């Protein structure tokens, strides 16, 4: 029997005090790979069980299949494909992918390389003369945000406004009615409405106009699957904007932090720039930006490791824990960019495998390579740095470093 009640560990993981180092708690959690919670939900934390359920067609991403309705703000809007099941998920993802990746738009991501490098260089140029740099505010945040705004066709000047909305939405993602003030949820709901309204306004201007950005392409192009409705485009843009906001920021910040904690690897990266490719993969395993998929639903009874999860149950997937499972990865708590067979869960797995993965990889590869190349003997000011509140999208809120002048 793999199921026991372990509400305690989960509560400790979600508590802010665990943010800097949740990994020992994950290890404790993995002792019960499928753990039933007091409220009837299930937490899955071991690698094999996670990959099993991520490929299980009985697992639903559509929260409308939960027997107990969920609170989060996302539940109240038209779902984007991340919160849908096949066939709708497949159709919308395919429609979006037509404009984002192969086979119809190959080379979009790799073609962005010169622009990405230029953006990164510009940001690092601005470090000149600064004694202290905040890797988050001065670099890891503005970089991917600039990129996703450009890609979608969202005016960069509006960024401060939707930064506020995105923060409120992210904040409400891990809303817990038992501990959180209702205000947190209300803010999230309001921000979702405002952001959708804003994107809807942008979209309206794009109909019937030529243009190369994603919003314009989605608004005007008819593929074999037909066209997305305006509502669907707004949901898709909303998803890409939010996903493009917080995840890559955390990946870059976690990456720099990890390198500063492993000076020998940092030096190696300086000497062998090609190391960056496996290094980013190892980072996605070791310090991933997305730690938890908080709500999936059992569409019918699902059997995981001899435990039957009843239909309608909420299922929480502890991805970051799976990527540190010693039953799957040799010496999992060691950061080892030479690791072989590194099939981490950093981008999830199965049909919802991260849509933006190729872009996030490239952004992070360029960002870390350039930081390491151009910073002169960088030092951490505080270790651990202060973290964002979210246990789901986990990363430092600031990462202050000093460099020699």
């Amino acid at each position, binding site marked *: 029997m793999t199921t026991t009640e372990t509400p305690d560990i989960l509560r400790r993981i979600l508590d802010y005090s665990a943010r800097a180092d949740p990994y020992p708690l994950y290890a404790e959690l993995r002792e019960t790979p499928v753990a039933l919670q007091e409220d009837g939900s299930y937490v899955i934390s071991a690698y094999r069980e996670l990959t099993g359920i991520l*490929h299980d*067609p*009985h697992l*639903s991403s559509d929260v409308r299949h939960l027997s107990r309705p969920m609170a989060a703000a996302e539940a109240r809007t038209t779902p984007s494909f991340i919160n849908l099941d*096949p066939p709708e998920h497949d159709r919308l993802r395919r429609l979006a992918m037509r404009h984002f990746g192969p086979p119809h738009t190959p080379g979009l991501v790799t073609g962005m390389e010169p622009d990405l490098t230029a953006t990164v260089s510009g940001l690092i140029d601005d470090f000149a003369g600064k004694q202290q740099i905040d890797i988050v505010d001065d670099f890891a945040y503005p970089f991917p945000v600039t990129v996703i705004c450009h890609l979608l066709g969202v005016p960069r000047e509006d960024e401060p406004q939707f930064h506020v909305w995105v923060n409120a939405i992210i904040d409400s993602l891990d809303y817990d009615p038992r501990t959180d003030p209702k205000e947190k949820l209300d803010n999230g709901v309001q921000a979702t409405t405002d952001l959708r309204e804003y994107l809807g306004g942008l979209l309206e201007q794009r109909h019937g106009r030529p243009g190369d950005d994603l919003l314009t392409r989605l608004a005007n192009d008819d593929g074999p699957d037909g066209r997305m409705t305006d509502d669907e485009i707004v949901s898709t843009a909303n998803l890409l904007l939010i996903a493009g906001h917080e995840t890559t920021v955390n990946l870059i910040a976690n990456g720099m932090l990890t390198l500063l904690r492993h000076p020998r690897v940092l030096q190696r990266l300086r000497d062998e720039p090609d190391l960056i490719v496996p290094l980013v993969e190892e980072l996605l395993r070791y310090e991933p930006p997305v730690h938890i998929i908080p709500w999936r639903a059992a*569409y*019918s009874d699902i059997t995981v490791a001899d435990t039957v999860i009843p239909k309608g149950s909420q299922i929480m997937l502890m991805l970051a824990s799976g990527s540190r499972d010693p039953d799957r990865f040799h010496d999992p708590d060691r950061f080892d960019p030479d690791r072989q067979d590194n099939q981490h869960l950093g981008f999830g797995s*199965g*049909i919802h495998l991260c849509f933006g993965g190729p872009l996030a990889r490239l952004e992070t590869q360029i960002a870390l390579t350039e930081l390491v190349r151009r910073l002169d003997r960088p030092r951490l000011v505080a270790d651990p740095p202060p973290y964002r509140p979210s246990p789901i999208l986990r990363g430092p809120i600031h990462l202050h470093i000093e460099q020699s002048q």
Partner: protein
Amino acid sequence: MTSADTLKGFKRDGRVVIVGASLAGLRAAEALRDEGFTGSLTMIGDELGEPYDRPPLSKQVLTGWVPAGGTTLPRRRDINAEWLLGVPADGLDLATNHVHLADGREVPFDRVLISTGVRARPWFVETEAALDGVFVVRTREHADGLQRALASGPSRVLVIGAGFTGSEIASICRERDIPVTVAELAPAPLVGALGAVIGDVAADMQRAHGVDLRCGVKVTQLEGDAQGRFHRAHFDDGSTIDADVAVVALGGIRNTEWLRDSGLAAGPWGIACDTGCRALDLNGLITDDIFVAGDVARCPNPIYEYRLISLEHWVNAVEQAQVAAHNMVSAQADRWPHLSIPTFWSIQFGVNIKSVGVPTFADEVVVTQGSVPDRRFVAAYGYQGRVTAAVSFNNAKWLDHYRQLIETAAPFPPPCPTPDEPVDAKPVPVDFPGPRLLAQGATVVVTGHDPGERRVTAAWQHR
């Protein structure tokens, strides 16, 4: 000397010979070096040139995207081998441990790996097979010739045999806007490998793309003109068809003839071996120095009742090569079994077809997810009430789940609804046309006895 010393000595300066220098042979050679084998390594191959990859030959090469010469297999590491290319091996002497080459040379070995694969089954009338415009597709020379014939704008192409290779070639013809007729003895394409239900889907797909598909017919004669160019084919129903190109896609013949007098259990279905890739002799005894990998191997698998299974699958060749190489340089207790669940893929008519398990090892099939009319679905195969295989059309990401069902002998049909459930999810008989046809077009042949044991649970491999 202890056996540990012997093994050490062999690893340091033993002699390994690999016969068949293609995918399995090259990957095994690399794995041997990875495992620390520093002795002499000889690669014997009857083809000239570096080992290359075959799946693109019926896909990217025929569209003209990739030149036939551009499919060289990537080298993962230096193997420091002696290459004896362009000459076939024509005998194996187990008494003296020598490989005989057709040019009379003899190559001594301590251990040998046999990976001679299969060759294309030629058209059964030699003079007709020799006509200009008649092709098979197994080597890069074949693919190069066919791609040039397609590029010259033939009025029509006739594909004989609608297995995977034949169907892929038909798909490319349509992609290149070349009229194509496909002749298949079975009632539908892919039937030999995937059964009648999927065969019907494949038939619809071909017709929807403008293929002139003729099933249940036999091509009896390929007729040439005065210049010796193929121009017409005759069918057993008396009809004829005019075309400039005929592609004979009737499956493969295993390259085992050269082993006829070796005393190994080698024959038309391949070379029998144990799960450690060690060849069996005619009496079923394990020969400890003779290893087999790839298309030519017949390997038992507990999930399929330990029947000996021959697979013409790329992944299988790579995995067996790794296991064989490891076992060649390991002590008995450290050896690995090759127990993986087969996977296969194909791309045709814009659809990505992928399978796990052995679909021919089934009595029933059911569509479990998606929609057949939309050509995006998963079908599960069952044998006596347990799941034994699955096939996906444009839905490959789910197959890991079915792999798990196969590994755990999960009940068939798989229960409970999924969000993307097809309207009619009833199991139906799998309907294979029988062993006669199986040998012609199938990529998988299951042979062996039928013990009563049904339930198997795969052991998790730790490497």
